[in-house]
């Protein structure tokens, strides 16, 4: 039993790390702009596609060891997706800042459709094989089966999260981001280039999402244009769970959601005597989302809604 548990735990941590990385993108954007970027899941999807394109291209050129090709492709994917994020913010969200919250949200929705359809139209809707970065060798850990890929994902994700935390807390640019999250007007009055902070957030967030996508694709070995939708929604749930706007919250929420999903679906058939099966796994995330929003919308680490803000004008 214990080895099964450990196996599931590692799996939950790995998938949780992936959710966390994507959730970071949602939470940072929300923190600075109070906007839920519906299109964020698509950056997750674009990552592996762009990586594959670059990797095969570099491989075809020859001249470098495949490991180096892979590394270059990974970094390049981060940068490309990040720049795409900056561009999308600049052209699809920024013009709508004065129009309340509904308009940017719809624009994000549209952007999400455009990105997904563009990939589907170019590459085709069917799943495509994703070239493995690291050979997947199983490791016997205290009796359970754990693969190097899982551990690799976990390690890489943790590294990225630590890196982000150090960046946001230590560097000047990071302080810009935190200041802009607290108060837009005050920050601009203090001379902080708030727009730069926003662009930065739209570079890092999508970039991290792309990394998560590459990890996910390397774990399952395939990728398809629709992979961003459901995962995006789940990662959003993770961000809400941890408290939207809070960076540590997003990471915590990711791991928590991973655990709930993995352990929940593992035990669900047992608990319901086989009536509700594992195909309801996606419903889990939705259910968690709805429950959190209804009972504790601030999440675990999020900003508590003060009374002053509840006498707000409108919903959006």
């Amino acid at each position, binding site marked *: 039993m214990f080895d099964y548990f450990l196996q599931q735990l590692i799996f939950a941590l790995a998938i949780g790390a992936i959710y966390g990385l994507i959730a970071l993108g949602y939470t940072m954007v929300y923190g600075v702009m109070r906007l839920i970027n519906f299109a964020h899941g698509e950056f997750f999807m674009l990552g592996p596609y762009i990586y594959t394109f670059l990797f095969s291209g570099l491989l075809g050129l020859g001249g470098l060891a495949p490991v180096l090709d892979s590394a270059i492709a990974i970094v390049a994917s981060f940068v490309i997706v990040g720049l795409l994020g900056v561009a999308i913010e600049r052209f699809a969200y920024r013009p709508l800042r004065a129009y309340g919250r509904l308009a940017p949200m719809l624009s994000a929705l549209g952007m999400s459709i455009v990105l997904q359809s563009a990939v589907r139209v170019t590459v085709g809707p069917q799943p495509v094989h994703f070239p493995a970065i690291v050979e997947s060798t199983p490791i016997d850990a205290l009796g359970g089966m754990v693969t190097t890929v899982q551990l690799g994902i976990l390690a890489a994700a943790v590294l990225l999260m630590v890196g982000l935390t150090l960046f946001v807390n230590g560097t000047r640019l990071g302080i810009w981001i935190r200041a802009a999250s607290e108060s837009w007007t005050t920050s601009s009055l203090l001379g902080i280039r708030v727009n730069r902070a926003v662009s930065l957030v739209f570079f890092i967030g999508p970039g991290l999402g792309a990394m998560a996508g590459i990890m996910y694709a390397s774990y399952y070995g395939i990728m398809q244009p629709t992979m961003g939708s459901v995962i995006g929604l789940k990662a959003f749930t993770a961000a809400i769970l941890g408290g939207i706007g809070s960076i540590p919250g997003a990471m915590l929420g990711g791991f928590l959601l991973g655990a709930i999903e993995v352990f929940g679906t593992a035990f669900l058939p047992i608990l319901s005597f086989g009536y509700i099966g594992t195909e309801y796994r996606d419903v889990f995330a939705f259910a968690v989302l709805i429950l959190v929003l209804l009972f504790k919308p601030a999440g675990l680490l999020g900003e508590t809604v003060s*009374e002053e803000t509840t006498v707000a004008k409108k919903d959006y």
Partner: protein
Amino acid sequence: MALALENVSKHFGSLVAIRNLSLSFDVGSIYSIIGPNGAGKSTVVNMIAGSYSVTSGTIRLGATALNRLPKHRIAQLGVSRTYQNLRLFDGMTVLENLEVCFFPQSWLTFLTGAKRLSKAERLDICHACLAEFHLSDVADVLAGDLPYGRQKILELARAFVTQAPIVLLDEPAAGLNHTETKDMAAMIAGLKREDRAIILVEHDMDMVMSISDRIDVLNYGELLCSGTPDLVRTNERVQEAYLGTTEELDDIRKLAQSRRAQGGLRANAGIVRH
């Protein structure tokens, strides 16, 4: 006794905004709540109207306790208000801003039509109200297109159109110039009636002194003094709260004059104008 605050306290976390406040208001009079900034005036209004919860104590309208009721229930019981930062329905016409106030307030009235005004009756009342507040000429103008002064008047009209017995006015003269303020003061004074209590929160002392029957002075969430304008005007503690003690005044004067020597400060800077 129509509206009463009984030992009301309001805490925002660890900040005590209102401390054991007891006040009572009766129909037929105009009351003003004044005090330095941060004294808690708007907090009191917000608590009566139900926007803020009451940490301890009770707010009573007649025999009914208001503080646990939802905002719309409190309004239905007869409390109407204006907002400090002008909250009209900008995309709707002036007439429509008033009409909305007559939305049927319970399922019973909605379905059975009992106690419900017909469209004609409703429009009559609204037009009469517009005439009373000199807004008839802009009845079909969008509220957001009106000049600021007239928007303030519309906000005022909206609070009075349903003949609510308790009317809370949150800084009705904010942002108005001297003439507009005098007009506003005259208008409010003219709205005094036997069956209604008007409670004002204001900074403009001319308005407050000229139209109030009773003035309640708050400072740091406590009641400092309560009485007629003459009483309040000459009360020492009030003067201290607003103007500082005489020692403080001397210090301020010295500071101002020393800086003046360094260049460019007006001689009267440092004396607080109310």
